[in-house]
């Protein structure tokens, strides 16, 4: 997706990027020092090695971009680096055993980042094998349901056994599906957008083209019912609808899709205990019959948020350990307790700028778009 052209006129270097990376370095160092200062357990060398490796990694990415005279956006890398820094600090804070693992993934991600820039940008080769990606994605999606290799952890069947541990194939599925959707929609977007018939303002494409929507919906429902993962369901179908909208510009498809999702959700709520529990817990976690059961984790998370207040209690001063599985499910709450509303919104803002920066580097600025609305 990144064919980005520079939005900022360039001289020889990438000074915007470098100066922003200095802020990221400050963030990472302060974060690690603050966590170390309040840590009660014994000191481990990883706490110093990891931030050092991280800083070296970011610096080398920057030098690499300068070296190849890359003329793309200078803000995306610092934001990604900032989010990675916050991630590493929080892993050190919440589950320091996983710190090296987190760092390894950061290194892999940095490698992937460099690779997407160096490797030829012609993506049509990917499009040619779109059905292969679709099939692979589907296989991975249903893999956790298979006997022997599939695993159910904490009530969700979304893991498969690999060697001594287990992985969530879902993470790979996301990327495969995005590639497939992009290729598929590119091929059919004309047909999907140029509906032959209309009912009122709504386009009705020929039946064969509605099939994908219904098929994707069916798969999403299967994920919800059998893998018991509400988050994956919404994300999977959400990605599909977003891309369908990107290709066709028909908000109507998104509305049909959301309608189907809600309908399926209501039916599943009536039929399946795990869906019901999840929804009830979300709606009223403080109910007497939920707060010590299925709502426990959520309630502990809300206590953490409430303790955060406007500016937080400071890194290392909160009580994230009271939230079960905090390092995996409730990192945001743990961060908001210690960094407060200010930190939480700053974190969200980083994602928002990242999101905005990607299309904005190619297309008119957001203010221009806003004026047109």
């Amino acid at each position, binding site marked *: 997706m990144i064919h980005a052209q520079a939005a900022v006129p360039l001289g020889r270097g990438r000074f915007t990027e470098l100066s922003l990376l200095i802020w990221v370095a400050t963030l990472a160092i302060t974060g690690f020092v603050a966590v170390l200062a309040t840590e009660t357990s014994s000191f481990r060398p990883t706490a110093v090695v990891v931030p050092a490796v991280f800083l070296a990694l970011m610096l080398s990415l920057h030098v690499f971009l300068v070296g190849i005279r890359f003329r793309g956006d200078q803000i995306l890398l610092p934001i990604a680096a900032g989010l990675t820094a916050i991630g590493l600090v929080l892993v050190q804070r919440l589950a320091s055993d996983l710190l090296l693992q987190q760092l390894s993934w950061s290194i892999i991600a940095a490698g992937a980042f460099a690779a997407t820039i160096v490797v030829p940008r012609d993506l049509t080769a990917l499009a040619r094998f779109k059905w292969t990606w679709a099939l692979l994605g589907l296989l991975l999606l249903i893999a956790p349901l298979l006997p022997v290799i599939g695993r159910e952890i904490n009530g969700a069947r979304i893991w498969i056994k690999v060697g001594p541990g287990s992985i969530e194939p879902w993470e790979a599925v996301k990327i495969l599906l995005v590639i497939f959707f992009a290729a598929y929609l590119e091929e059919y977007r004309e047909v999907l957008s140029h509906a032959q018939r209309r009912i009122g303002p709504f386009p009705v494409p020929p039946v064969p083209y509605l099939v994908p929507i219904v098929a994707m919906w069916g798969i999403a429902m299967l994920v919800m019912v059998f893998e018991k993962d509400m988050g994956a369901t919404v994300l999977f179908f959400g990605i599909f609808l977003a891309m369908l909208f990107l*290709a*066709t510009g028909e908000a109507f498809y998104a509305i049909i899709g959301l309608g189907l999702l809600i309908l399926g959700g209501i039916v599943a709520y009536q039929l399946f205990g795990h869906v019901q529990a999840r929804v009830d817990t979300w709606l009223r976690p403080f109910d007497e019959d939920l707060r010590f059961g299925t709502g426990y984790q959520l309630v502990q998370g809300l206590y953490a948020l*409430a303790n*955060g*207040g406007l500016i937080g209690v400071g890194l290392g001063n909160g009580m994230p350990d009271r939230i079960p599985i905090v390092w995996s499910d409730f990192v945001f709450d743990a961060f908001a307790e210690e960094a407060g509303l200010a930190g939480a919104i700053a974190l*969200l803002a980083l994602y928002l700028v990242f999101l905005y920066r990607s*299309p904005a580097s190619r297309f*008119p600025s957001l203010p221009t778009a806003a004026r047109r609305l």
Partner: protein
Amino acid sequence: MTSPISANIRSLTLTLALAFLVTSIGAAYWTVLASDQLANDPFNPRLIAATNDRPRGAIVDRNGSPVATSEKAAAGFIRSYKDRTLAQVVGYASPKFGLSGVEAAYADSLIGQDPADPVSIWKARYLGDRAPAGQVLLGIDLKIQKAAADALGGRKGAIVALDPRTGAILASVSVPSYDANQVVDPSKQDAAFDQLSHSPDHALLNRVAQGLYPPGSIFKVVTGAAALENGFDPTKKLRVDDPYQADKSWGDYFVRSASHAHGLFDMSDGFRLSENIYFAQVGLQIGAAKLTDYAKRFGIGSTPNLDLPAAKGQLSDSGSIDRPTLLADTSYGQGELLVSPLQMALIYATIANGGVMPTAHYATEVRDADGHVVRQIAPGPQGQVISPNTAKTLTTMLVGAVSGPGAFAFGAKIPGVNVAGKTGTAENRPGEAPHGWFVGFAPAENPTVVVAVIVENTAEGGVTAAPLGGQVMRAALGK
């Protein structure tokens, strides 16, 4: 015409930006707006964790005698509860089961962060510099508390004594009780809590404020007050013939007299001999609207403003009096009425206090570690419920109900002191023995104590309860 993808990307970006805005609003709600409420939620582990490395503040009675203290234990500190009869009031502070009672209601004060002391809260929060915990002082007087606990003994029920001038609760007994030390003892807590939460007797329940019972005859003061304030002449004699019905439309439904009375009754006679048929007729004369109005003014059906959890009771199942037989039954305290002992104590406190209802409260003061008063807990009165004249007239009749000829509540008499009071024998579900009530105050001329007693399922009803009320009042008056 296919819209250009760039336009679609912009729309999608704006949609997602909107989603971020919604998420930020959600974060703002939970971190800032809901913050205070959640910070003091009794199950928030942060309240307990604040006392892992230092003692929690003591809870003491009005003379400074401790009822809950923190003792050094192998790991951190453990709470020690001194008085089993105060279990439901003081509550417990358990790392596992959260907080209850005063431990929950004054949780922030007990960790040295009283809301009246924002500097301490700020220092603890942002500088990690936590003030040593202070004390919470209760209105409870352990001497009166003991008299009340001894009076009730092992019988199920409740006794509450309060000062009608301030609303401070002087004694509060709820039987059966439990040993809170077991709930906070790591080696016994699971078994103890499991047993308590499944106990058919509801030992965790503070019957004083949360127990709901039909009031029976003690409710007649409400009917009396409504009548007196609406021009009803208390000296007018009404004909009582047992059994009674207003007209044939009642079918086989009758109001019964406890003493199978036949004769002429005025209001004094009605109170002294607790005549149901007299008050049924009064209620029918003044009408449902006026009785409903006064029951509501006296707080029936609304949660009392108390610093601990309290039940609100009800005037009737539907909330209104919609038929004559229900009006007749409600007028003498039956029908579908439900009240807590505290609500009845507050109604009599209003009469004792010249018609002004006080606000009940268990705690009276928060002090810091040096003994300085951080906050006085003295909630103002709820307001003028009935006129001073009505209060005076009712007091005179209630004195007659204790010491007049043939009075039902004779058991509450104290030599040398004028006691005002009323017994009640509240009919229960069929097949269950009635509840025995007594509510009264003393000295009648200048009341300093109101006592409400309920003994569950006792065959003699109010006759059982009256002497218990007398014992507690005597302890309170030092007689």
